[in-house]
């Protein structure tokens, strides 16, 4: 799509022939991909051997639609943009709009786009509305490619200087944007429960999003600042959650007393993991941390007596207002939250309180990170990320530096874990799978490494969006994976990317943007 091939031969290739070639290739590929996997759906009925049902029409439509899009895309490379614009727009209208109607279960969809008579062909290619939506979005990309090629034709080719200037402008915009967006997001987050939209469902979703923002900021210390790729971050989250669960169930401690203990224990685990793996670099470190995360999860599953095994631990004490419970009928002579403030009892109070607690915890994480960046230890982290050998030569102790990064990151994960436990009132190993680690890492990287606001944006996008799109049910995680790939392809450096070193030798003189070596 984007790769411009230089025409080496004496004759310039004919656009139509080239596009047709591409389309035929795409058709063969799509057929290979879809023939068995989509063409035959295996099913296991009770007490029978496995059988299958065929879905040839879906295969045929895919083999037609995707190469058609590819054909139009290739044409745009030869400045034939009109077919792509028209075809893309038509495809988008034809597939996307009815598809969305179908997903939202608008009655119009049932009347117009679904045929009851099996002999009469359907108007839409695919039976599932969501599949039509996905293909409609594909058509939109064809349209976008056509429009972009048209604009490029009028602007003309870019020289290197122009492109560099554009990149510098982008970085500046990102930076300005994040300095505006940061306070704005915090303000919106603080007042949202008091707005008409701040119902329980939204606040619940936001609590989840904020938990991931906090985890993202915590992991940012390890990955973004110290440059240590950690794929087992969820292990510390689990340690925090189980620590609070055990403290609350066995010792009867409340959330506020347990929080520092959980953080300390998680940090200890961070150091315990950090010690043996200090000598490793880059991807070796990644795989060992991944293994460590899995080990913790397997132990949680199998150590029945202590962790409750796969069933987890229930009846964890709910959060209280600094010692004052959120209860409808408090014990004789004791206060409850609503009696203290003279309010009517409402279960929403606790949700709102949880929401502000997680915002406070997340902001503490953010504040500590920002302050530490300007302290010697933060400088050492960044220096270590850029060049470990040089660090050693300058007398920075890599062992201590790495261990503090691990410990701090783990501590914040431990806090987040305790919060998770008190919110759910229940913990089980299922909540701490590898995919969680992957999602947290994706939030850090998609946000633009090192950018605090970017992390928050990525968390809203990756966690909030799927929650809002609950209707997609089965397609939710499919879309999630697809969006992850798409964002990375469109913005390889992250949503808000500007990697400016915190300190520079010669004042404000711009350094060339460093892209390589983010994680060694």
């Amino acid at each position: 799509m984007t790769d411009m091939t230089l025409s080496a031969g004496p004759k310039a290739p004919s656009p139509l022939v080239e596009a047709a070639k591409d389309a035929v290739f795409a058709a063969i590929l799509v057929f290979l991909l879809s023939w068995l996997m989509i063409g035959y759906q295996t099913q296991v009925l009770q007490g029978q051997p496995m059988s299958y049902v065929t879905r040839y029409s879906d295969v045929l439509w895919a083999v037609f639609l995707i190469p058609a899009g590819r054909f139009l895309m290739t044409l745009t490379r030869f400045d034939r943009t009109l077919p792509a614009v028209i075809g893309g727009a038509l495809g988008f209208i034809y597939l996307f709009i009815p598809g969305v109607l179908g997903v939202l279960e608008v009655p119009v969809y049932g009347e117009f786009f679904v045929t009851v008579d099996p002999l009469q062909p359907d108007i839409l290619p695919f039976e599932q509305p969501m599949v039509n939506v996905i293909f409609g979005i594909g058509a939109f990309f064809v349209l976008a490619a056509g429009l972009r090629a048209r604009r490029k034709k009028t602007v003309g080719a870019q020289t290197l200087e122009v492109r560099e200037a554009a990149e510098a402008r982008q970085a500046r915009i990102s930076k300005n944007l994040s300095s505006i967006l940061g306070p704005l997001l915090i303000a919106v987050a603080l007042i949202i429960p008091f707005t008409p939209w701040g119902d329980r469902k939204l606040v619940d979703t936001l609590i989840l999003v904020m938990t991931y923002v906090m985890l993202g900021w915590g992991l940012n210390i390890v990955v973004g600042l110290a440059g240590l790729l950690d794929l087992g971050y969820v292990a510390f989250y689990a340690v925090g959650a189980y620590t609070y669960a055990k403290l609350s169930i066995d010792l009867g401690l409340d959330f506020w007393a347990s929080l520092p203990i959980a953080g300390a224990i998680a940090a200890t685990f961070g150091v315990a993991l950090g010690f043996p793996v200090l000598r490793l670099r880059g991807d070796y470190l990644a795989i060992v941390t991944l293994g460590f995360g899995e080990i913790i999860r397997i132990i949680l599953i199998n150590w029945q007596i202590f962790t409750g095994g796969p069933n987890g631990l229930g009846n964890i004490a709910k959060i209280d207002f600094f010692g004052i419970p959120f209860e409808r009928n408090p014990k004789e002579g004791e206060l409850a939250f609503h009696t203290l403030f003279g309010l009517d009892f409402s279960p929403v109070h606790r949700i709102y309180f949880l929401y502000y607690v997680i915002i406070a915890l997340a902001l503490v994480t953010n504040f500590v990170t920002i302050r530490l960046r300007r302290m010697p230890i933060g400088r050492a982290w960044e220096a270590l990320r850029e060049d470990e050998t040089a660090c050693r030569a300058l007398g920075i102790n890599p062992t201590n530096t790495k261990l503090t990064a691990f410990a701090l990151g783990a501590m914040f994960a431990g806090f987040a874990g305790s919060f998770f436990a008190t919110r759910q009132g229940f913990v089980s190993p299922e909540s701490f799978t590898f995919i969680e680690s992957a999602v947290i890492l994706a939030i850090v990287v998609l946000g633009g490494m090192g950018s605090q606001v970017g992390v928050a944006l990525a968390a809203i996008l990756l966690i909030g969006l799927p929650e809002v799109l609950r209707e997609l049910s089965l397609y939710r995680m499919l879309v999630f994976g697809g969006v992850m790939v798409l964002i990375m392809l469109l913005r390889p450096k992250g949503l808000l990317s500007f990697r400016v070193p915190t300190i520079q030798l010669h004042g404000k003189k711009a350094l060339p943007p460093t892209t390589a070596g983010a994680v060694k």
Partner: protein
Amino acid sequence: MDWFPYFLQQLINGLTLGSIYGLIAIGYTMVYGIIGMVNFAHGDVYMIGAFQAMIVFLLCGTLGISWVPLQLLLMLVVSMVLTAAYGWTVERIAYRPLRGAPRLAPLITAIGMSIFLQNYVQLVQGPRPKPIESIISGGVSLMTRSDGSFTVQLGWMQIIIIIATVVLMAGFTLLITRTSLGRAQRACEQDMKMASLLGVNVDRTISMTFVMGAGLAAIAGTMVTLYYGNNDFYMGFLAGIKAFTAAVLGGIGSLPGAMLGGVLLGVIEALWSAYFSAEYKDVAAFGVLVLVLIFRPTGLLGRPEVEKV
């Protein structure tokens, strides 16, 4: 020698499992060797290979093909070709546009692809596990314990898996060392920019690496379908992580290393389950990995990295 028959049986089981890990690990190790990234979607490509083999087997039933060697051949060939197409597509969509991007970018697209493929298979083939009756059963009895209480069995399927793995490894080593494609791959591994200056088509070579890795993963998937006969959309995850562990264990970037790592991991797992506890077999596998990396950070057969300043 009363302990020996039981031990031998576990060794055989471990070898079989390890062969499968090794076949998947080759895909990881080759990709890592050339472009230095962990292809997290590889485990899911293996899962797709297993599913396609299973569907071919069902189709054989419909078409009335009941001669077992032909069935086996069809499953292997069709699944290899179609899974290779998946390997190629994953590389083309998710990794090729990101060449030269920050190092973590392809890692994230790989994770995204992995999530996408898992859910894609869950959608098109259903979330429930697919049991399939075994077509190759039976085997030979190797020895019996002196009191007759335990007989060591070597199943036909285990023989096929081990032999196929050995043959494939031999063929693959020849491919890498003798053919022009193999030479191009080794050139890209050493210095991609230089190789492209000297006329190696780097993009094509990388694509071929993914195609070959996916083909081998499809063979592993076919074997697993025939051996265990219970496929589900989530099976690629753990197998993928184990195979990557095997690749790191053997020394990433080294083909014999991947095989050695796979076999070692399989044997350790089998013995650990037999003598200690089956629940903690994964802990044992990762524990060994950590130990090896601490004492020999480049893996068993890996070359030490030269550090450039």
